[in-house]
């Protein structure tokens, strides 16, 4: 049976009649409980309004807590008050209608035209705002009523709820009377629907009292009751209402009556919205402003965004994550403690009855926690009742069994910026207390292991499980829809490992090969590439080829490629020209360009040619092989890897000395006024630019010198050029020179007047005075350099903090603007109105994640395949 759907929700104004009709209790006393702690009848906690205490039953519907939806009551206001939310509209209506006959200040003909136009626009889903605005503008300018000839008198609206007609203040009673006179037909011209909202309903005569379960009171430890903010506010309203009544009946002077009326207006205003400008917010005894109706709806934690668009869920877990390269990318290691708490429902049928029974009888890990009987009763399975429950078990029952290996779960890391932030994994129950994942899936989640926590959700219905497995599995998300390339791929050690393995002509004996490929499922070794003195040797390229699928053909330039003017192709000096033929790596080095996340061409090709399952397997094998290889070859990085010989230090010193002189010369030229300004720049700007340039150059030269002396076998250099981690710039800073620190792209000049620190003369423009750090991280920074470095670093921190909030808001707006767009069966993109946004998605209808890096089809590959007899 298809679940029922709500077709639509209509919004209307509550009329006084409606309020009285839906009310189950007239509330007259401001008190809540009597001395015995029993709710007072006709008080704010009247038992007919619903129940909040467990065990009691509702006096209206007889339902218990959780069953009774709550019922509205009402308060009869002694005198009408304005609804703040509509105060402005009331003012506009008063000005646009006749004070005598209540008609709209437009001739009938004109009015009918407008009403017709509004109806037309409503039907076509157009916007009527501008039209209504115009109606108000024109009719408020009319001098004389076209219907009865009365002169129009301008009514001044003053925030929050005051109206003046020639200095004479209008009471809500006057206003209500005038609004009552506006005929239905005229209201339509103001964009109002008279059936849903009569304007006089905007002046309240009856106030609905929300049911108690919308304003539950909490009992403190001391046994004292603490009431909800809304209840407090309602108490205020009723108390003033009562006093008003008494005074009015006693015939109190007009002045007192007016004061009380105003006070009632204040309380109703703050009850509806406690943040109206010009009205002091109602406060709690402690001084905290009360959270009244508007505040409950508004904002991030409000009803709409906090409780309706986002909901809290069961069947979820959260803990710290840690890496485990032995898991498949499609798996997640779940701690046993969590697996014992989370459950998956088994819908018992005659086919799985026996299986379900077994789970109930078990006493250890994959056992049943609860069973749910067909009547919805939930029974906890214990050792004592297991036997009994098994016997009763029959089709129609649900057994909640513990999470176990192979179950599908959703895994998520916040911020969930794209769909790859929630993916389906297969469970592997493991010891210890962290979630374990293959480091290759870090990039889509943007996770690292410095204390990150992640969430896990267990889909409960079979549909949800199937959907998760088919659409949300990790392997289905290897290619990102953002740019049509892989977002899952090798990182860090995977890249350095394979780089070390495949670079050049590494030879391994059979024992070594076996050790490296131990975790792989390899049945046969290829013919050894070398045989010297009866010993067989295999190359690293051959080992890597073991995990490549058969029939794979590729040619590309690796990350380490230096972009020589003339490419020597397979004769490349640094083995950067990668050739894969029929699944065998013939030339080149495997690095970031081949298997890295975001870049990995090989992954990309395997997904397209062999499908996602093969790609998953390739990635699993890649991670396993790379870790083995890097362990076999040995790879480490320590502080002495940044050591450079004295000769290099001398050269760097020379470069720095040169740069210093250059800067000094520039400053001198500037002071003498001999500096030629760059086009469109002042002399000062020119000086700064030139200094920045020469210091930047100096640092780069220092970096180059350091890089040359470190050599290509340095671990940091290997990581940088293979794309595993870090860059040559990082290396430069560690071994050569940290370089210029900047704030807002300029040298540091803030601080004291005319100087950055008191260690310098005012107006000094040299390198050190403006934050140039000559030392390297290895050598260590002197106190001044350290300070400037901190200044530059601080800017980075602030930048990140500001950026996250800004980009978060941008993302929210984008999502909100585009979330309803859907591809229809005819290939168009339409919004909810059915209006066409694009006639063909992206002009060619191609899915970006299936596209070949943006191109609809990979013509080159097709040609190759066809020509090679595919």
């Amino acid at each position, binding site marked *: 049976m298809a*679940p029922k*759907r*709500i077709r*639509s*929700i*209509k*919004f*209307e*104004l509550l009329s006084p009649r409606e309020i009285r009709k839906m009310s189950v209790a007239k509330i007259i006393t401001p008190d809540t409980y009597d001395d015995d702690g029993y709710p007072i009848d006709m008080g704010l906690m009247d038992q007919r309004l619903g129940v909040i205490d467990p065990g009691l039953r509702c006096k209206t519907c007889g339902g218990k807590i959780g069953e009774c939806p709550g019922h509205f009551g009402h308060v009869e206001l002694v005198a009408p008050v304005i609804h703040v*939310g*509509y105060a402005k509209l009331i003012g506009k209506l008063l000005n646009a209608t006749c004070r005598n006959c209540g008609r709209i200040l437009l001739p009938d003909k004109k009015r009918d035209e407008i009403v017709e136009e509004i109806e037309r626009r409503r039907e076509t889903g157009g916007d009527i705002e501008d039209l209504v605005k115009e109606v108000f503008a024109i009719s408020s300018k009319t001098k004389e009523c076209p219907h009865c000839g009365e002169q129009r008198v301008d009514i001044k609206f003053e925030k929050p709820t005051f109206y003046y007609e020639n200095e004479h203040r209008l009471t809500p009673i006057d206003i209500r009377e005038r609004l009552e006179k506006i005929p239905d037909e005229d209201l339509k011209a103001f*964009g109002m629907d008279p*059936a*849903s*909202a009569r304007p006089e309903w905007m002046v309240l005569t009856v106030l609905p009292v929300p049911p108690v379960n919308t304003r539950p009171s909490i009992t403190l430890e001391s046994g004292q009751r603490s009431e909800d903010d809304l209840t407090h506010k309602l108490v205020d309203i009723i108390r003033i209402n009562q006093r008003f009544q008494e005074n009015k009946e006693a015939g109190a002077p007009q002045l007192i009556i007016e004061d009380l009326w105003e006070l009632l207006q204040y309380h109703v205003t703050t009850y509806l919205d406690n943040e109206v400008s010009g009205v002091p917010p109602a406060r709690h005894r402690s001084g905290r402003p009360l959270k009244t109706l*508007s505040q409950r709806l*508004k904002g991030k934690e409000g009803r*709409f965004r906090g409780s*309706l*668009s986002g909901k809290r869920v069961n069947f979820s877990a959260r803990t710290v994550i840690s890496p485990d390269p032995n898991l498949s990318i499609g798996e997640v290691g779940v701690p046993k403690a969590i697996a014992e708490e989370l459950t998956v429902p088994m819908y018992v049928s005659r086919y799985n009855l026996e299986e379900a029974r077994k789970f109930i009888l078990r006493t250890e890990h994959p056992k049943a926690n609860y069973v749910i009987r067909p009547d919805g009763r939930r029974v906890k399975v214990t050792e004592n009742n297991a036997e009994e429950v098994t016997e009763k078990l029959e089709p129609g029952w649900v057994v909640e069994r513990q999470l176990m290996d192979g179950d599908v779960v959703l895994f998520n890391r916040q911020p969930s*910026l794209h*769909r790859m932030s929630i993916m389906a994994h297969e469970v592997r129950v493991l010891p210890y207390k962290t979630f374990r994942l293959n480091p290759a899936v870090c990039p889509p989640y943007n996770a690292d292991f410095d204390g990150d926590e992640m969430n896990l959700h267990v889909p409960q219905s079979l549909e949800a499980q199937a959907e998760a497995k088919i659409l949300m599995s990790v392997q289905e998300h290897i290619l990102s829809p*953002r740019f*049509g390339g892989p977002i899952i791929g090798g990182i860090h050690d995977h890249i350095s490992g394979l780089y070390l393995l495949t670079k050049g002509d590494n030879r391994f004996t059979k024992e070594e090969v076996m050790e490296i490929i131990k975790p792989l499922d390899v049945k046969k070794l290829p013919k050894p590439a070398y045989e010297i003195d009866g010993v067989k040797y295999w190359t690293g390229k051959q080992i890597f080829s073991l995990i490549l699928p058969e029939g794979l053909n590729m040619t590309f330039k690796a990350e380490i490629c230096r972009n020589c003017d003339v490419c020597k192709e397979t004769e490349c000096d640094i083995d950067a020209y990668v050739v894969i033929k029929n699944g065998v790596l013939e030339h080149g080095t495997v690095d970031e360009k081949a298997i890295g996340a975001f870049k990995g061409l090989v992954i990309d090709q395997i997904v397209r040619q062999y499908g996602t399952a093969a790609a998953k397997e390739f990635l699993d094998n890649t991670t396993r092989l790379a870790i083995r290889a890097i362990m076999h070859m040995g790879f480490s990085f320590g502080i002495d890897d940044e050591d450079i010989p004295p000769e290099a230090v001398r050269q760097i010193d020379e470069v720095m000395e040169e740069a210093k002189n250059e800067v000094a010369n520039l400053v001198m030229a500037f002071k003498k006024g001999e500096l030629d300004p*760059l*086009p469109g*720049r002042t002399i000062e700007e020119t000086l700064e630019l030139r200094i920045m340039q020469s210091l930047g150059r100096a640092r780069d030269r220092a970096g180059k010198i350091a890089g040359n002396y470190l050599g290509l076998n340095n671990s940091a250099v290997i990581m940088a050029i293979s794309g595993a981690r870090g860059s040559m710039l990082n290396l430069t800073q560690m071994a050569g020179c940290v370089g210029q620190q900047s704030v*807002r*792209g300029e040298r540091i000049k803030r601080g004291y007047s005319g100087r950055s620190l008191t260690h310098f003369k005012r107006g000094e423009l040299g390198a050190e005075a403006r934050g140039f750090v000559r030392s390297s991280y290895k050598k260590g920074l002197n106190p001044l350099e350290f300070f400037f470095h901190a200044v530059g670093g601080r800017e980075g921190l602030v930048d990140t903090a500001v950026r996250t909030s800004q*980009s978060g808001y*941008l*993302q929210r*707006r*984008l999502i*909100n*603007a*585009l*979330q*309803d*767009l859907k*591809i229809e*069966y005819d*290939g168009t*993109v339409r919004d*909810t109105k059915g209006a066409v946004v*694009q006639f063909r998605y*992206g*002009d*060619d209808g*191609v*899915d*970006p994640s299936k596209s070949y890096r*943006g*191109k*609809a*089809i*990979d*013509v080159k590959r*097709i040609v190759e395949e*066809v020509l090679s007899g595919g």
Partner: protein
Amino acid sequence: MDIKEIEKELKKYPFPESVRRDIREELAKLDLNKKSLKKIIDRCYEEYLSNLMEPGEAAGIIAAQSIGEPGTQMTMRTFHYAGVAEINVTLGLPRLIEIMDVRKTPSTPIMTIRLQDDYSNDRKLAREVANRIEATYITDLADISVDITGMKIILFLDEKVMERKQVDKDELVKKLSKSLKVDVEEKDGKLYLSPKEPSYRKLLQTVEKMKDIVIKGIKEIRRVIIRKEEGEYVLYTEGSNLKKVMRVKGVDYRRTTTNNILEIAEVLGIEAARNAIIKEALDTLEEQGLNVDVRHIMLVADMMTNDGEVKQVGRHGVAGEKVSVLSRAAFEVTVNHLLEAAIRGDTDNLSGVTENVIVGQAIKLGTGDVELISKLGGRSK
């Protein structure tokens, strides 16, 4: 291979133009026989069909995520233009936000002006065009001093600058006397300006007013820079006024553009604005080294320009004009939307995503959009 033959074969399939172009380019390089040509194109079509978006796909959400996600990786700072330290341009996240906000004027309006053939290769002619565009003020041309006793303003004209900026002295005199309503007298390179009615206030006011007069060029264009690019001189400007610049003599209006999207919409129309949004957003992302498929940006641009005027992504544009009350209320200014809806007697048809999440129903996208009917009762005998 013969283009005509490829074309003939391609015509048999309903490829979109961009795909057709790709295939044509690739095949033209090769020498094929008819059979393999046919086979290749057939395979291309097969591949194309399998690469299409599936019906029901939430294309909008994917687009929003694809643009929003890289936002976290962008920088906040403004950098110099294309490596040359001449004009500052807003880049990175602030620029992206600016594009989505459709600000009246961008924080750094910039025009790229290309010149007509005969101008584009001659630096002198290019300079001439630049002078016609760049706003020149009196302070650029002369030093001002006020002679209070003589009730006169004295301008010491800088002949060199005058010549460089190609300002004619007589024209200057005419312009000043006309727009300030003063008598202008010229004496050995100096201009003496005297207001018609002698009053100190008037005199000082005139000085201030004079500083605001644009002697030559277009008011909005504060600076013009000439650069040689790909063998021709191109003008870059700080400040933007597309309408006026396009009419300047020597400017090739077909290849002249600005980064002010609203201006493009106004002068060249909504389709041009759509393309401008795509170009600007893509350039901003690419400059940061972020790779985003054009289709996503296209969708955003199409959404923004869908009904003929450029709408902002946000409260005052796309998101604020949605039909659903609940969806608008869940976005921003919650209470006002609800009050307004009640007055109008609005009905929410629960067709979008947020609305259905709110009431707890399956959304009408992806798998939630599919309805399957199956006959119960098993196989008929």
